[in-house]
């Protein structure tokens, strides 16, 4: 053990804990990180290089750590956690990694959550500068100080949040932070009046041949292990530094009991207080000197340090190349930085009126006991480039960087992508600036001119579980159910938008195909019923509704009389179909529009947009009433008998109740609106009742229809029925490039209206090309082969290996059986209406199915069945 008998500001010696590393139990104390516990237990390595397999040790003490990634096995597990940022707990179990973790597929045992809060001032970083800034801000209102250390001293008038890492700073004062909690982490969304960044500075190393061994450590990090955790990271040390804080760390290590055998400072002189202090401890100092390599023991650990001033047997090499102000958060929302020679680092450039300010070491302020400026130095002057590791996490070397340069890359962003330096889980916190410095040397340009890569959130890795928080499982997305869902819940469901709709109603042991064939036969020959409650319904009220509908639908609506219903097609300004549906005129000033199930909110938004932004003078309002109505569709030749039995007061005859009309009636004792509309081509009625009567209506229809063999059917049968009639489904048979004319629905486009949305675009030459893709029908030439949805249409017999194979269109809807039991499909086909009768191949997965082109309507072409 290398734990000192006393000391350690962060550990609680009264609370020992046991953690397991690769099956070996090691003792630690509450407050240890896994890294300090491993150092205390003298575990020789924490992992291996992801590509090189070289042994690697702990380098840093915080988020700058490039090597110490472990796979957490306990508490559900987590891939790739930095041992330097992982607080130990009793039962913690980890595996060391070779630079790459494994996805954890098990469910999280903990539940993460999220919290939104508002603050006048938020200070990130609880060091001296952050605490001073917090104390100075107490009069401004709600002040929060957060830091990722395990505990914070209380501060009057300031809320404090420990174990909390700010991960992203965004525009308008939004800060995101993750708070580590035992029961599950919490993602904080902090809305801040102003933000003070006191994020400190991160130590950077010096690159040298074989400088990636276990036992090579950052100097201030090594001193921190002594101070915080009372752990000695080595016994016999050599130090190599380029700035005063590195010397300070060497003294701390020496005073804690590390035998410092030599100090090499790359600078030509050091300040007197350091010279005196080192001399008083009999530590030899070599100025203008450098380390040139290391030699290892059998495990690869440092055993000997090779320097320009001679070789030294040592088990620890501490290096310190300088401090990088932690400007990542500053840079997230676009804050600029500049290189400072005085700091030997990139410092933030903060405008006077900035809502975000930076203080302390993060702003480039000197650390205590800094007398002389740092040297701008990044690596030793000699060495084998393939063994000078710049980013040990990505296993990238000086050789890799030179290859990038030789390939002509000079931008730091390009070199990053070529070498992958800085793209690991540490996001270049350790290697980034060092690599920029080395690149600048290679290019012979000032470091500031080369600049840094772009820092983006998150500052530390965030788990998907944390981002999901409580929005998982049933809470991941709302599920919408119709009011009569429990009557149909036994059916397999299809997701349509957020709605669950019955897909088909299988009898015991019945397949999808068999069930759908049976349901189709029932509707075509008898009567079927379906829950149509999910279709979107928008109530439009006001004297000008007709004017609006004339503008948004391609056909004429203002002439519609009460109690009529009309089918309409809606286009975007580009002339392409965006939705369709029926609209009923309920009174002079009230209209009920139906939309497709998945598109209801989109259509309502569009109507509101046009009304508010272009035609606010129109006197009307619109309201979504989808959830206010339960709807049962009753379709088939026997549907009139069923409705007549349910509504004795309603004259259902074709003469008294015409197609595309509606009536008010009592249906099964329920006040209802009955519409004669049909999506199947059959005689059909749609019964709308206030939503809470949905289940009662369903039961009544089922009971009244029993004598006629009424059959519930689902969305699959509905699709077959409508496809046989050539009714397109917007979004399935259309894709945003399809006009009403392409669908063969020119009859629904008014030529009389001066304008409607899309009319001008439909007049473009391209919209009138005769060879546009048209909606057509397809049947297999052999009458039995199935056609696959999404299959490409190519010339019959086309050589499928002669790329590119010219595509003539694609299959948009395909079904194994229509009313005649044979497969059929709908497709979009170049100049399709001129190619009826032609034979093509429908190709899926390189398998061609010969198909014959037909008109889109394959059943009841003359439309004789709608009146029964």
């Amino acid at each position: 053990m290398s734990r000192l008998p006393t000391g350690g500001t962060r550990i609680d010696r009264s609370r020992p804990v046991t953690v397991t590393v690769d099956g070996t139990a090691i003792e630690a104390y509450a407050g240890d990180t896994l890294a300090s516990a491993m150092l205390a237990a003298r575990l020789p390595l924490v992992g291996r290089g992801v590509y090189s397999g070289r042994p690697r040790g702990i380098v840093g003490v915080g988020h700058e750590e490039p090597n110490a990634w472990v796979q957490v096995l306990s508490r559900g597990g987590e891939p790739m956690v930095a041992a330097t940022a992982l607080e130990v707990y009793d039962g913690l179990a980890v595996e060391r990694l070779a630079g790459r973790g494994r996805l954890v597929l098990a469910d999280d045992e903990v539940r993460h959550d999220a919290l939104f809060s508002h603050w006048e001032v938020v200070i990130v970083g609880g060091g001296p500068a952050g605490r001073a800034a917090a104390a100075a801000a107490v009069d401004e209102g709600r002040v929060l100080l957060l830091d990722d250390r395990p505990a914070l001293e209380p501060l009057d008038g300031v809320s404090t949040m420990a174990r909390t890492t700010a991960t992203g700073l965004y525009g308008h004062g939004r800060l995101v932070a993750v708070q580590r909690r035992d029961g599950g982490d919490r993602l904080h969304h902090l809305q801040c009046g102003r933000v003070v960044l006191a994020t400190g500075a991160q130590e950077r190393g010096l690159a040298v041949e074989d400088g990636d061994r276990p036992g090579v450590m950052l100097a201030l990090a090594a001193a921190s292990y002594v101070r915080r955790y009372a752990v000695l990271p080595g016994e016999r040390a050599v130090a190599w530094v380029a700035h005063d804080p590195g010397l300070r760390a060497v003294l701390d290590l020496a005073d804690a009991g590390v035998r410092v055998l030599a100090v090499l400072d790359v600078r030509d002189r050091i300040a007197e207080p350091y010279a005196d202090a080192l001399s008083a401890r009999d530590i030899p100092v070599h100025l203008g000197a450098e380390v040139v390599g290391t030699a290892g023991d059998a495990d690869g650990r440092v055993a000997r340090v090779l320097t320009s001033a001679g070789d030294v047997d040592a088990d620890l090499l501490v290096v310190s190349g300088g401090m990088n102000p932690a400007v990542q958060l500053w840079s997230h929302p676009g804050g600029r930085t500049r290189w400072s020679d005085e700091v030997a680092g990139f410092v933030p450039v903060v405008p006077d009126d900035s809502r975000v300010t930076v203080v302390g070491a993060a702003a480039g302020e000197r650390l205590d006991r800094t007398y002389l400026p740092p040297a701008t130095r990044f690596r030793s002057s000699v060495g084998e480039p393939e063994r000078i590791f710049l980013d040990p996490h990505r296993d990238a070397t000086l050789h890799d960087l030179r290859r990038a340069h030789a390939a002509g890359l000079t931008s730091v962003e390009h070199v990053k992508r070529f070498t992958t330096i800085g793209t690991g889980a540490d996001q270049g916190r350790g290697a980034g600036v060092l690599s920029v410095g080395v690149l600048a040397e290679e290019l012979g340009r000032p470091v500031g001119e080369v600049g840094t890569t772009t820092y983006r959130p998150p500052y530390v890795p965030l788990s998907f579980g944390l981002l999901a928080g409580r929005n998982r499982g049933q809470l991941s997305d709302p599920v919408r159910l119709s009011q009569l869902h429990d009557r149909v819940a036994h059916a397999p469901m299809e997701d349509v938008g957020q709605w669950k709709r019955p897909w088909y109603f299988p009898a015991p042991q019945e397949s999808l195909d068999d069930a759908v064939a049976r349901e189709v036969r029932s509707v075509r020959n008898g009567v079927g019923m379906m829950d149509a409650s999910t279709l979107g319904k928008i109530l439009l009220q006001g004297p000008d509704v007709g004017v609006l509908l004339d503008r948004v639908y391609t056909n004429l609506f203002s002439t519609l009389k009460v109690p009529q219903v009309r089918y309409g097609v809606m286009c975007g300004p580009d002339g392409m179909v965006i939705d369709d549906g029926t609209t009923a005129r309920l009174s002079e000033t009230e209209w009920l529009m139906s939309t497709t199930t998945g598109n209801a909110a989109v259509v309502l938004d569009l109507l509101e947009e046009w009304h508010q932004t272009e035609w606010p003078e129109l006197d009307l309002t619109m309201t979504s009433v989808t959830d206010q109505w339960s709807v049962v569709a009753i379709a088939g030749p026997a549907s009139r008998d069923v409705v007549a039995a349910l509504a004795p007061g309603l004259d259902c005859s074709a003469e008294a109740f015409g197609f595309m009309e509606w009536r008010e009636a009592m249906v099964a004792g329920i006040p209802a609106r009955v519409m004669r509309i049909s999506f199947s081509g059959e005689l059909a009625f749609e019964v709308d009742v206030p939503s809470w009567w949905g289940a009662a209506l369903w039961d009544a229809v089922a009971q009244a229809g029993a004598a006629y063999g009424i059959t519930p059917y689902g969305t699959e049968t509905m699709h077959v029925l409508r496809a046989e009639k050539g009714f397109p489904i917007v979004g399935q048979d259309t894709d945003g490039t399809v006009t009403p004319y392409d669908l063969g629905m020119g009859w629904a486009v008014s030529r009389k209206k001066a304008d409607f949305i899309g009319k001008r675009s439909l007049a473009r030459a391209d919209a009138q090309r005769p060879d546009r893709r048209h909606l057509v029908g397809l049947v297999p030439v052999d009458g039995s082969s199935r056609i696959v949805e999404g299959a490409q249409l190519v010339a019959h017999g086309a050589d499928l290996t002669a790329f590119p194979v010219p595509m003539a269109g694609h299959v948009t809807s395909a079904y194994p059986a229509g009313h005649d039991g044979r497969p059929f499909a709908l497709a979009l086909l170049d100049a399709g209406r001129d190619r009826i009768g032609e034979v093509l191949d429908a190709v899926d997965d390189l398998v061609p199915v010969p198909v014959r082109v037909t008109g889109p309507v394959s059943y009841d072409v003359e439309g004789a069945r709608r009146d029964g």
Partner: protein
Amino acid sequence: MIRVPCPHCGERDETEFHYGGEAGVAYPADPGALDDAAWSSYLFVRANPRGWLRERWFHGAGCRRWFAVERHTVTDEIRSPS
């Protein structure tokens, strides 16, 4: 995260809104009178300044009203239109 000043509800998170692009692009009074170039310009061509842009927002998760604000496309600074 942008904070959008809704004239009806006050300043709210960007996630409550839909973005509507450049403001002030009116639907032409007589689209039929426009040639193809003028019509495609209405459909597709929008200002893309480096600086202040007057743009439309829709408070879909609030008052459901459309309104215009000015936003600086570099700094995301946002203000009510003058």
